[in-house]
């Protein structure tokens, strides 16, 4: 969130160039540009970047419902159902339930044209290109809670504008593939990617999981020798990753569905006694099958 001085100007979220709008007491939208630096093989925005986008839009939609409390993402899921190609990509979130201890948000992602209008199919309908859900743990408000500068009037708009990405997002983040066949990747913890709790931002964790699964299933040295793209993420956030490096342990499941496959990735904080921070279940499909269009 762009509150209480977070994120700083030199930050991953700022460099994604997010433009946010809180549209009602329980809804929000956030958009980014689908630049070549955030897309993967096949030209669709990477699942990890989309996870970052929906995490921010989910938090934005929850802001008013939560007041005066704060939140931490407990789980996040994402399913990509069409190529996410932009030129703008917008996530729209709605709070489904605000309970005493948790808050659940659903989000849909759309491709927008250069002017910000929905791209429509031949029938004139704007179809979502991805679906997402999140559970946030409600944290009682404290003095240290970031100050929210939310005006009483709606909509409220803000932008996180940084210098932009000058190289592919995984390189900017500093994710290194240590062993592709075993799905081992590593990420040092830097200020650039910390969240308001001082830990690695949740979307970045999802991106590490995405990179590990992609490497294992179909990276250049992968066992199947065919490029794949992650379409589905199920992420459980268990503990904050503060020290680093964050290192993945991956296990491939035996599949019999469409080509591609499923991988379970555990992310541990190596500098904090290998503490398990995050579990990511990922499903990937060959790049060509995504572009084929469906249904």
């Amino acid at each position, binding site marked *: 969130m762009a509150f209480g001085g977070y994120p700083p100007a030199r930050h991953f979220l700022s460099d994604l160039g997010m433009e946010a709008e809180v549209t009602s007491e329980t809804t929000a939208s956030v958009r980014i540009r689908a630049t070549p630096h955030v897309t993967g093989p096949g030209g669709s925005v990477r699942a990890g970047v989309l996870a970052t986008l929906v995490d921010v839009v989910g938090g934005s939609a929850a802001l008013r419902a939560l007041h005066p409390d704060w939140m931490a993402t407990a789980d996040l899921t994402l399913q990509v159902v069409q190529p996410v190609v932009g030129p703008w990509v917008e996530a729209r979130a709605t709070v489904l339930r605000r309970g005493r201890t948790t808050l659940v948000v659903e989000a849909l992602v759309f491709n927008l044209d250069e002017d910000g209008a929905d791209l429509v199919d031949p029938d004139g309908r704007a179809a979502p290109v991805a*679906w997402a859900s999140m*559970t946030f743990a409600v944290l009682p408000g404290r003095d240290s809670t970031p100050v929210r500068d939310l005006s009483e009037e709606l909509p409220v708009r803000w932008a996180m504008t940084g210098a932009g990405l000058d190289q592919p997002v995984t390189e900017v983040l500093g994710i290194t593939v240590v062993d592709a066949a075993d799905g081992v990747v590593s990420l040092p913890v830097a200020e650039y990617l910390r969240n308001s709790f001082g830990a690695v931002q949740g979307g970045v964790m999802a991106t590490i999981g995405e990179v590990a699964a992609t490497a294992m299933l179909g990276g250049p040295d992968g066992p199947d020798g065919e490029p794949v793209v992650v379409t589905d993420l*199920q992420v459980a956030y268990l503990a904050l990753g503060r020290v680093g490096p964050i290192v993945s342990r991956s296990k491939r499941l035996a599949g019999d569905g469409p080509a591609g496959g499923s991988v379970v990735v555990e992310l541990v904080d190596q500098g904090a006694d290998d503490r398990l921070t995050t579990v990511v279940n990922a499903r990937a499909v060959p790049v060509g099958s995504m572009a084929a269009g469906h249904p």
Partner: protein
Amino acid sequence: MSDLDQSRPDPALDQSALERRHAVGAYFRLERWEIPAVPDGGPFPTIGGRAPLDRHQRGAGGGLRTGALLTSIDSLGGLLCGLSVQPEWIVTTSLMATVARLSQVGPLRFHGRVLRRGRSAVVAALDVVDEGAADQAVASAVLTCAVLDPGDMDLRFARPAIVPMPPPDPDPLAPEEFFRIEPGTGPVTRLELADHLRNPWGILHGGAVAMLADVASCRAVSSQRDHAHGAVAAADTVLHYLRPIKVGPVEARCRVLGGSTGRTVVRVAIHDVGNDDRLATVGTVTVLDV
């Protein structure tokens, strides 16, 4: 009926509640065994489980129907989380499952462990291997439960909790019949809230919700296609249990979102029609061509 208390019969226990507690697990012949916490292994027990692959529970993919698999995951994960927070108890709030292989040979073996015990929630991971295929890993799930005061619910268990595999039913019901899922086609599928589908809280069992999501999403995809397209089966599933289902009938309303070759993602919204049509569960099911 098979239940955790067979090894310790107690006439004071409320038998109707016990039957409710175990009717769904018994239908799937789910064997369960608690593995007590070991020194240096963390404060929580783990749990093992085994489910046979009876013919009437096989889906179009050849193996256990995903709704049935998720029911076992919910039962085992719920028991593990509950045992880990006693004297409090739990209710499932979300289930995220990746089902990579639909043509399992069986039986399936489960192992569950607590990933996190928070102030008001407990998170468990469950891994599923196919014993009939050299213990291949075929599915993995994360289950999140809210910790609640059980009130008057009877939660006495012999520890470690062990439930042997119930014997096969000579004349078993199909899952649609057991779960009272009405026949039909199209994007809306209904379930009648029968008493044996209620969990110990008196609300619709999370596994029944998962089975309804499985059936409804497959019907929604099939109804958009001609018969030449072949069969489909549910796989990866996300369910957020937002509110308890108390009244019924229960309606699953599906929206086919799209996908990729051989993979269709369906959004499922489950409403408690008799309770002001309240939205009770939201999620997605990934339906695969088989």
